[in-house]
């Protein structure tokens, strides 16, 4: 099962996704992240992908959508600890050109 957990660190919200990211699971992931963003208004949203076991292009849409949302609110999106499986799609998508991707969770 795919699930997501959140840790608030001051103005930073860390969202750790665990499991498979596809069109089906993206719907609830998007809903949960956006609810937390609306409620907590973090300056930085960090998406931790270390525990992602599968990701297709739906995940790119999810990342880009959150990037847009954070940018519009004057905040920032950081993608951290990209796993081997999520890295394949992220690498070919070209989003690394606009995104802040870190190896370590800050």
């Amino acid at each position, binding site marked *: 099962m795919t699930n997501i957990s959140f840790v608030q660190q001051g103005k930073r919200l860390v969202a750790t996704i665990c499991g498979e990211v*596809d*069109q089906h699971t993206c719907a609830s992931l*998007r809903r949960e992240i956006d609810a937390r963003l609306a409620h907590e208004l973090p300056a930085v949203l960090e998406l931790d992908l270390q525990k992602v076991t*599968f*990701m297709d*292009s*739906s995940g*790119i849409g999810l990342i880009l959508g959150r990037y847009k949302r954070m940018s519009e609110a004057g905040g920032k999106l950081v993608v951290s600890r990209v796993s081997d499986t999520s890295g394949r*799609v992220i690498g*070919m998508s070209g989003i690394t050109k606009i995104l802040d991707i870190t190896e370590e969770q800050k």
Partner: protein
Amino acid sequence: MKAKNYMRLRFPSKSVNESFSRAAVSAFAATLDITVGDLADIKTAVSEAVTNSIIHGYADSEGEIFIQAVIAADNTLKITVKDNGCGIEDIKLAMQPTYTGIKNSERSGLGFSVMKAFMDSVSVRSKKGCGTTVTLIKKLACEDA
């Protein structure tokens, strides 16, 4: 070429079946001793094709998706993903990177780009109103079991 092994799947276009169908095809491919990287590529490409059938082919309706996977004698894997949905009017446009037929969505428009990047060959046959068939081919480097 003569098939060494084959399988067929038929299931309703529910998004919960994206996970099931890519796992089933990759389990079939894993009957050969193939690399983890090739398995991940196949899984991702199948997920993209099935997702297209669900959200574009059948859009708001529900229909059936048919997958056939064949392993040829030379260890080439050929996967066809077929739907009887609305079809694609302009295949060339649909295959453009970042083009998406669904406006105001969070679709990245990278489905066909991912399939092309991860498989050796991708071909699409479609007619408006008559469904779409996507054929994915990958030559597998493996030891015969």
